[in-house]
C-alpha cells in the first residue's frame, strides 16, 4: 500500500512537471499550427543555462527563471522573424516548418556539445536545502515540491494571460482563426512572435528544473523530450494549452506506475501512449479536431 501511495503522489508531481515540459510546445502549436521539433532542445538549453549559472556563479535555479525568460525572448524574436513568416507563406508550412525545426534541433545540439562536451550534467538536488517534506506519510525531496509549484505557477500564468489580458484575448483569437483575427484588426504577426518566445521561455523554465525530476541533463536529450512533449500534448489535446496539464498528469502517473510495477517496460510507455492516442483519438482527450488523412 505504501508503494501505491508513493506512486500516485510522485506520479502527480512528476506529471505536473511534464505538463510544463509540453506547455510551450502546445502554445506555439496553437498559434502557428507548427510543431517545433526543436522544443526538446530548447528545454536542454534552459537546463544548460541553469547549470552554467549555478556552477560558475552559484546562482539559485529560482533566480534563473527571470534570466531564462529574458534570454529566450531576446533570442526568440529574431528567430521568429527570420524563419516563421517565410514558412507561413510557403506552399506546405506544416511539413516544411517541421523539417526546418528539425534542422534547428541538430544545430543546437551540436553547438552545445562544442561548448560543454557531450556529458551528463547535474545540479545537486539539495540546492534548495536538504530537508524533505511529507505528504500522506510519503517523504519527498524539497526540490520536487518547488518544481511542482513552479510548474503550477507557469500554468497559472498562462491561464491568466489567455483569460484576463488584452493580448491573451488576441492570442485566443489567433488560435481560433488566423484570418478572422487579422480582420478584427489584430497584428497577428506580433502576437505570434510573442507567443513563440513565450513557448521557448516556458521550455527553458522546464529545463531549469529538469535536473530535479529527470536527474541530469545532456546535450542529446532534446529529441526524446520532444517526443515525450508531443505525446503529452496529443494526450491533452493539441492547440489547447491548458489541456496540457491533463496530458502531463496521465503521463506522469502512468510512468510512475510502470516504474513501480513493470520497471523494465517503463521506457516504452510514452511512445506507445503517443501512437495509441493518435490512432484511437487523434483529437486528444478534451479536444475537438486534429488533422488526419
Amino acid at each position: 500500500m505504501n508503494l501505491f501511495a508513493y506512486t500516485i503522489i510522485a506520479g502527480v508531481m512528476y506529471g505536473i512537471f511534464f505538463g510544463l515540459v509540453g506547455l510551450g510546445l502546445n502554445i506555439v502549436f496553437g498559434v502557428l499550427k507548427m510543431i517545433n521539433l526543436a522544443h526538446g532542445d530548447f528545454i536542454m538549453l534552459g537546463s544548460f543555462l541553469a547549470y552554467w549559472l549555478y556552477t560558475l556563479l552559484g546562482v539559485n535555479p529560482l533566480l534563473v527563471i527571470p534570466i531564462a525568460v529574458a534570454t529566450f525572448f531576446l533570442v526568440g524574436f529574431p528567430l521568429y522573424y527570420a524563419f516563421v513568416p517565410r514558412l507561413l507563406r510557403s506552399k506546405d508550412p506544416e511539413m516544411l516548418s517541421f523539417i526546418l525545426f528539425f534542422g534547428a534541433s541538430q544545430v543546437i545540439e551540436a553547438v552545445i556539445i562544442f561548448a560543454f562536451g557531450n556529458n551528463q550534467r547535474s545540479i545537486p538536488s539539495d540546492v534548495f536545502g536538504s530537508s524533505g517534506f511529507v505528504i500522506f506519510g510519503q517523504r519527498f525531496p524539497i526540490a520536487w515540491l518547488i518544481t511542482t509549484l513552479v510548474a503550477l505557477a507557469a500554468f497559472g500564468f498562462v491561464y491568466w494571460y489567455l483569460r484576463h489580458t488584452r493580448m491573451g484575448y488576441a492570442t485566443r483569437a489567433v488560435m481560433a482563426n488566423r484570418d478572422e483575427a487579422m480582420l478584427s484588426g489584430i497584428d497577428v504577426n506580433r502576437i505570434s512572435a510573442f507567443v513563440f518566445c513565450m513557448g521557448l521561455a516556458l521550455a527553458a523554465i522546464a529545463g531549469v528544473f529538469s535536473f530535479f525530476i529527470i536527474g541530469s541533463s545532456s546535450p542529446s536529450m532534446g529529441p526524446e523530450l520532444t517526443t515525450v512533449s508531443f505525446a503529452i500534448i496529443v494526450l491533452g489535446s493539441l492547440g489547447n494549452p491548458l489541456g496540457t496539464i491533463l496530458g502531463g498528469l496521465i503521463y506522469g502517473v502512468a510512468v510512475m506506475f510502470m516504474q513501480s510495477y513493470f520497471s523494465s517496460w517503463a521506457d516504452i510507455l510514452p511512445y506507445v501512449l503517443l501512437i495509441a492516442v493518435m490512432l484511437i483519438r487523434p483529437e486528444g482527450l478534451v479536444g475537438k479536431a486534429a488533422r488526419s488523412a
Partner: protein
Amino acid sequence: MLKKIFPSLGVVLVVVAMFLGLPSIYSNQSFLFNLMLYLALAEGLNIIYGFTGYLPFGYVGFFGAGAYGSAIAVTLLHISPLWGVLWGGVAAVLIGIILIPLLRLSGAYFAIANLAASQALYYVVSNPALEKITQGPYGIDLSSVYNANAAYYALLGVLVFAMVLVAFIRNSDFGLCLLAIKEDRVTASLAGVNIVRARSIAWMLSAFVAGLCGAVFGWYSAVFYPSTVFSLDVSVFTIVFVLFGGIGTLAGPLAGALILYSMYNFIGISTPQYFQLFYGLLIIALVLFLPDGIASILRKGKVYVP
C-alpha cells in the same frame, strides 16, 4: 516511354560499375560499404517519401528490424546469412504491416508517430526481459558467419534492387498513381485509385528495402548492438541525403548520399558534431531556399533528371 527508361538504366549501370571497380582502386572497403548502404537506404526512403509525401522519421525502425530479423534467423534457426538477408526484409515488412494504420495520419503527425514507433521497437528489442531471443542490450554476435566480401556484394545486389524498384516506380502507372495521391487524394480516388492499397504497397516496399539494408549491415558488422541499428542518426542521415538530392527521382537521392556521405567520411568522422552542425544548417538552408533539392536546379535548366 522508352526514351525515359534509358537514362535510368544508365544511372544503374554507372553505379554498379563504380562499386564493382572501386575496391581494386580504393582499399577502404568499409567506407564503400557504408556509402552503398546509404545509397540504398536513400532510395528506399525515396519510395515512400518521394512518391507519396509520407516522411518516415522512424525509418531506422525497419533497418533495425531487418538487422535483428536476419540475425535471429541465422543464430536461432541456423539459416545461411544470404537467406537471412531476405528474412531481414520480411521482418521489416511485417513491422510495416503492423504500422499501416499510421498512414491514416497526415504530415507531421505521421512523422512523429513513426518516430515513436521506431523508439518503441528499440525499447522492445533492447529489453533485458527478451534476452533469450534478442540478447537484449548486449548485442548480437554473428562472427561465426562473418564474410565481409560476400556481404559487400550482397549489399550491391540490394542497392541494384532498390534502384531498379525506384526506376520502375518512376516510369510506371503505379508511380503516377502514387504521385497523384501525394498531390490530391480526392482527385486520385475519383480517378479510381484505391488509395489505401497503393500507399500501403509503397510503404511495404520501402520497409522491405530498409530491412534488407539492416540485414546486410548486421552481417557485415558481425557484432552489433540495438543502439547502433536503431540509432536515430540512420533516419536523419537518410532524410538529409534524400532532401538534398531531390525527392521523387532516381538520381537525386543517389547524388545526395554520394556527395554528403563522402564529405562526412572525409571530414567528419573524428568530430561528428561538425557534421551535425553542418547538416542542421544545410536542412534549414534547403527548406528556405531549395525545398526540392539539387535536382530542381537541373530541372529549371530543362534537364531531364532520371
